[in-house]
C-alpha cells in the first residue's frame, strides 16, 4: 500500500500520519503530481496496480472505514473484500478493455486547470496569496468537477474546507445533478 496526501503542506497531513503510524510509504503531494498523472479529481481515490506495474482497477472511490457512510452511501467492506480477494489471487483482474472503458481520461480543460493550479500553488508559496487565489479560481472554473482544486485550495484561500463555503459549493454542485463522489460503475 502507498498512501498519498494531496495537501498544501506536509504539516497539514502530519497529524493524521503520526496518529496512524503507517508501515507503508505515506507520502505528501503538495504540487498535485499524482493528481496530474492519474487525473485525480477528488479524494479518496484508490487504484489497484499489479506486480507488473499495470493498472488493474482504475480510479475508484473507497473508504477504509464506515465513518462517512451516512454521507457517501459507500460501505468500506465492499472494497475491502474485493481487495483481499485480489491480493490473495482468488479473483482475476478485469479484462483490459473493461478497465479502459471504466477509466476517466483528462480533457484539455482539466489540464489547463492543472496548469492554473500549478501557477497558483507556486505563487502561494512565494507569499503572493491574492495572485494565487485568482489562478485557483480560474482553475476551478475550467474544471468545476475537480475538487482537488476547488476544495483542496480552500486552505490556501483562507476558506475552511469543511465550512459553510464548502457546503454551499457542494450544495450547488449536487443540486445541478452532479455527483461529488464518482465510484466505478461496475
Amino acid at each position: 500500500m502507498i498512501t498519498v496526501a494531496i495537501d498544501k503542506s506536509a504539516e497539514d497531513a502530519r497529524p493524521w500520519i503520526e496518529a496512524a503510524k503507517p508501515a507503508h510509504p505515506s507520502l505528501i503531494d503538495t504540487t498535485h503530481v499524482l493528481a496530474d498523472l492519474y487525473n485525480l479529481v477528488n479524494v479518496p481515490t484508490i487504484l489497484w496496480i499489479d506486480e507488473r506495474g499495470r493498472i488493474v482497477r482504475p480510479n475508484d472511490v473507497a473508504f477504509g472505514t464506515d465513518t462517512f457512510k451516512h454521507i457517501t452511501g459507500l460501505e468500506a467492506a465492499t472494497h475491502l473484500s474485493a481487495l483481499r480477494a485480489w491480493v490473495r489471487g482468488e479473483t482475476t483482474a478485469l479484462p483490459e478493455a473493461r478497465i479502459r472503458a471504466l477509466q476517466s481520461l483528462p480533457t484539455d480543460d482539466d489540464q489547463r486547470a492543472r496548469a492554473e493550479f500549478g501557477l497558483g500553488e507556486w505563487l502561494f508559496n512565494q507569499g503572493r496569496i491574492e495572485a494565487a487565489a485568482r489562478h485557483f479560481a480560474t482553475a476551478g472554473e475550467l474544471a468545476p468537477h475537480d475538487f482537488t482544486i476547488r476544495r483542496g485550495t480552500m486552505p490556501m484561500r483562507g476558506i475552511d474546507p469543511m465550512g459553510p463555503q464548502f457546503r454551499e459549493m457542494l450544495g450547488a454542485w449536487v443540486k445541478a445533478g452532479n455527483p461529488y463522489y464518482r465510484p466505478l460503475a461496475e
Partner: protein
Amino acid sequence: MAGTKFTVIDGGRAAEVDAVEGIALAKRAEGAGRPVAVDLDERAAYLGVNAAERAKALSSLEAPDFALPDLDGRRHSLSEHRGKKVLLVAYASW
C-alpha cells in the same frame, strides 16, 4: 520587459530567466499544444502537460511512475514496488 526576471515552472521545477525569454518559452509551449498558465503581473508561467499525453499514458494501463516525499522528506517511488501488488490511496486532510 528585457532585464526583468521571469519565472518559468516546467516539469514542476521553477527557473528564473529574463522576461523576454520567459514569455517566448511560454508562447512556444502553448504553440506545441501544452497547457500554459501565465501571470504577466507576477512575471511567472507554468507549463503543463497536455491531455493527449496524459490520456495516452493512462490508457496504456502502465501505471505512471512518480516519486514523492514522506514526512521526513525521504522520496519513495511507485517503481520501487515492482513485483508487489499495490493499493494506491490518495486522500487529504480537507
